[in-house]
């Protein structure tokens, strides 16, 4: 029983997911399946409450020590629940009762989040792998959900092929580490590394794992799939997969880097240093050339992965906390952006060129204003989540003496301002009278709710970040104390 409490949110989500599937099967063929989305939302709220409750659970492991609930796992659980909840709301706005496969879509969102959550609490690499697969396979399917368009299945296929290749790398990395240390438990690895001389195997394993997770977080040079997949997948799905799996993958990377292999930091810090520089630069330079908003955001997400990797190199509790905080703020602003895009572009993506958004501020002050807020947060203007995230990341990096990385990163954020601003300027330029943007449907209730959630998160994280910072720092503490005690 005690074991089950350690995975309570995952259990709640699984039950909700199964329920959605069963109800979906029992409903008459022609009936409206949108209520299933609300069912899913209720399930996620339950998981959110369960995660919150886990804060009161004394930190510990369950199921023979393969899952661990601590401040770190709960922090990411709540984040993932928030992301999935908002994505479901966005989906509720985007789809019509006639959209095919609605029941499956909502069920997959729930199952996917089970995987993501489990990734953050697993302390046994094989379980991490299984959770990674649960999350990935759900997202592969969801990416191809718009079967009638050519781009969506293409996106799903690309994502699947490259994704399985990356998971194979990850698995191979686990095998090598097992070869070197004789265990796949996080704490076991860190204990075994101390007196270990099988460095070749260990380094090989580390490199493989970084490649596998680098793909999942779309860090350059493992990023080539991102623009195509984001462009082809339905926007509500992109809202989820550009944030949720990334958050989970960063959590895994943090656990492995700081929990399992802290002694190897002399090796992984330079690697991540370069990954950060390449990701920031490649992402921002790529985004400059885009005309399609979804592709632009794909490149921007590569750059943001780079900023988060900067925090990894700080090698301090502050660095871990900064990375965790940044993942949250990135989640809020990116999900918010895709909420707007999903409503304006529609499920069929008929308006995704940046020029199409010209005049959004006039045709819909609410959507235009929300989009502007998300954009200035992505730029990193103070009093928004994006600024505080960057500020904290670079403060941690500079504190650890990473002057050049900080300079490169902040110059990058200056470059990035250009392409975000181009969108903001378009939103407030006068539109052509007959532009399709002028005949926009009013935002539905679920979308308004999604916008409210994300906008409030951005302002709270930007103006009074104290509580979230405290939680991020508590999460960081559990990781470093785990490694310090060895």
């Amino acid at each position, binding site marked *: 029983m005690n074991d089950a409490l350690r995975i309570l949110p995952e259990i709640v989500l699984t039950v909700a997911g199964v329920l959605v599937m069963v109800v979906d099967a029992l409903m008459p063929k022609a009936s409206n399946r949108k209520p299933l989305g609300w069912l899913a939302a209720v399930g996620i709220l339950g998981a959110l409450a369960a995660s919150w409750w886990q804060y009161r659970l004394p930190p510990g492991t369950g199921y023979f020590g393969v899952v661990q609930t601590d401040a770190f796992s709960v922090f990411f659980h709540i984040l993932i629940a928030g992301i999935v909840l908002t994505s479901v709301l966005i989906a509720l706005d985007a789809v019509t009762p006639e959209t095919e496969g609605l029941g499956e879509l909502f069920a997959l969102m729930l199952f996917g989040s089970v995987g993501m959550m489990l990734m953050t609490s697993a302390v046994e690499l094989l379980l991490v792998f299984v959770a990674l697969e649960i999350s990935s396979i759900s997202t592969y399917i969801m990416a191809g959900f718009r079967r009638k368009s050519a781009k969506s299945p293409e996106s799903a296929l690309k994502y699947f092929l490259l994704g399985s290749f990356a998971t194979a790398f990850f698995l191979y990395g686990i095998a090598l580490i097992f070869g070197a240390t004789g265990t796949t438990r996080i704490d076991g690895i860190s204990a075994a590394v101390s007196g270990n001389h099988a460095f070749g195997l260990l380094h090989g394993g580390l490199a493989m794992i970084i490649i596998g997770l680098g793909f999942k977080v779309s860090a350059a040079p493992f990023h080539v799939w991102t623009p195509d997949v984001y462009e082809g997948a339905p926007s509500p799905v992109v809202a989820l997969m550009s944030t949720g799996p990334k958050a989970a993958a960063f959590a895994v990377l943090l656990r492995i880097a700081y929990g399992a292999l802290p002694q190897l930091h002399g090796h992984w810090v330079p690697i991540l240093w370069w990954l950060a520089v390449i990701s920031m630069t490649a992402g921002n330079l790529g985004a400059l050339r885009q005309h399609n908003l979804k592709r632009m955001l794909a490149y921007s997400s590569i750059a943001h992965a780079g900023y988060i990797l900067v925090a990894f190199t700080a090698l301090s509790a502050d660095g871990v906390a900064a990375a965790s905080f940044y993942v949250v703020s990135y989640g809020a602003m990116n999900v918010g952006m895709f909420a707007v895009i999903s409503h304006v572009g529609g499920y069929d993506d008929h308006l995704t060129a940046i020029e199409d958004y010209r005049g959004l501020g006039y045709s819909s*002050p609410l959507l235009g204003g929300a989009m502007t807020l998300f954009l200035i947060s992505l730029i990193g*203007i103070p009093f928004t989540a994006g*600024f505080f995230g960057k*500020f904290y990341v670079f403060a941690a990096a*500079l504190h650890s003496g990473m002057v050049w990385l900080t300079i490169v990163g*902040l110059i990058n954020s200056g470059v990035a301002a*250009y392409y975000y601003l181009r969108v903001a300027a378009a939103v407030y*330029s006068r539109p052509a009278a007959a532009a399709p943007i002028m005949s926009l449907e009013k935002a539905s209730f679920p979308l308004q709710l999604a916008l409210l959630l994300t906008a409030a998160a951005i302002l709270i994280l930007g103006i009074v*970040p104290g509580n979230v910072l405290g939680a991020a720092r508590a999460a960081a503490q559990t990781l470093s104390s785990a490694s310090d005690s060895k």
Partner: protein
Amino acid sequence: MLNDHILTAITLLPAAGAMVVALLPRKGHTIQWFALLVTLATFVLSLHLPAHFDYARRGFQFEENRPWISSPAIRYHLGVDGLSLWLVLLTTFLAVIGVLISWRAIETRTKEFYFLFLLQQTAMIGVFVALDLFLYYGFWELSLVPMAILIAMFGPARGRQAALKFFLYTFLPSALFLVAILWLYAKTGTFDFVQLQDALTNQPSLFSPQALWWASLAFLMAFAVKVPVFPLHGWLTDTIQEAPTAMAMVVAGKLGLYSIVRFNLGLFPAQARLIAPLMIALAVIGLLYGALVALAQTDMKRLVAYSILSNLSFCTLGIFCFAVAGLNGAVFQTINEGVTGGAFLALVSLLYERYGTYDMSLYGGLASKLPMLATLYVITALALIGLPLFNGFVGEFLVLSGSFEAHPAWIAAATIGVILSASYILWMVQRIFYGQPSPLAANRPAVDLNAREQLMLWPMAVLMLVMGVASPYWIRAIDGAVSGLAGTSAGTAAAPASQAVSAAAAGQETQ
């Protein structure tokens, strides 16, 4: 009680007003009236500051200092000294003028306009009162957003490009500025201005001289773009052309100049002295270049833009000569530029509202048709060229006299700039108001200033005169704040400012 929270009230009142504007209906002039109410209330509140300001005391007053975020150690620290006192008042004063000037000029999308306009006021006041570098940086960057959006929204021709240009010009150097702030924090563990100043003066061993030099450059670069200092002025003309008048009035000058004095002179005095020769040269070049280019303009708004560049270079010159009188003059001139330059832009836009063009060659002979407008125009022009009795004279006199000893050659060159500025402004007045009435002036009905326009222009005109005649009232506060700066930088204080001020006053009496 009020003294403890007055700065928060002044800073946040416009933002709170903006939130209400977002909820008001778009009917009639509700939004305009409400915005006027908010800006007036803010102005009245800000009058509390000079009334209760202790002129004898050094350091910051009306301070608020409370923890905001525990780690990183960020504090909510506000305060004003003689340097920022008048700049806060200038901002709240121009906000009222800004609402009045936009009353008719902005007829569509008023809600968006006034929302962003009020937000901009909060950001600008915040820059002047924030004493925590994090908070300061927040307001500094925030001030870009409403401005850029409004330029994109209301720019008549190339609003989008101008908005991008304006934003990126300031944002890019701000990135390095942030690195410098973070570096200071990494070394000292604080963002607090007072503590940083203390650490930089008393614990120099914490910092490597080379890194300190780079940090000071990063600060200076960000501010110099904002002023703008000569080669970095690329954004200015486009912004002034494309921005709504109320925003163009506040876009240049005070934020950057204030920051240079506060931070470059306050935190990095030695480094500021090292770079001074370069800055003086750039200032004089900017002064002459701006005046010469203004001389060649036929477009009134572009002329104003270049004249602003020229006048602001004057302030930069005064700052980097490191004489007490020069610094006093520079700060005083910054305020003048806000008032006079603002009035100048307002007048030009009133002409545009009447005749639909900024092209001077199409105007002529308006003096007899619009006597009131012409009078105010001439007053403003005389203040701009620094005629004695007007505020411009005091500022120019202080800068020139205070700095002459140290840099006679540069000051001589700057004086040529003063003469040039008189030429282009008087020539402009002559072309618009005198001579034969042009076809344009003859064919349009002559509508002189209405009550609202007078209500906005007369206070500015009176202020130009009062600031010229009673300048010591302003200077004594400024002097208290900047004399220390010149002292720490020069080691020995130059001619006491009070002397120079009385000299300036004497000069006026003899005129």
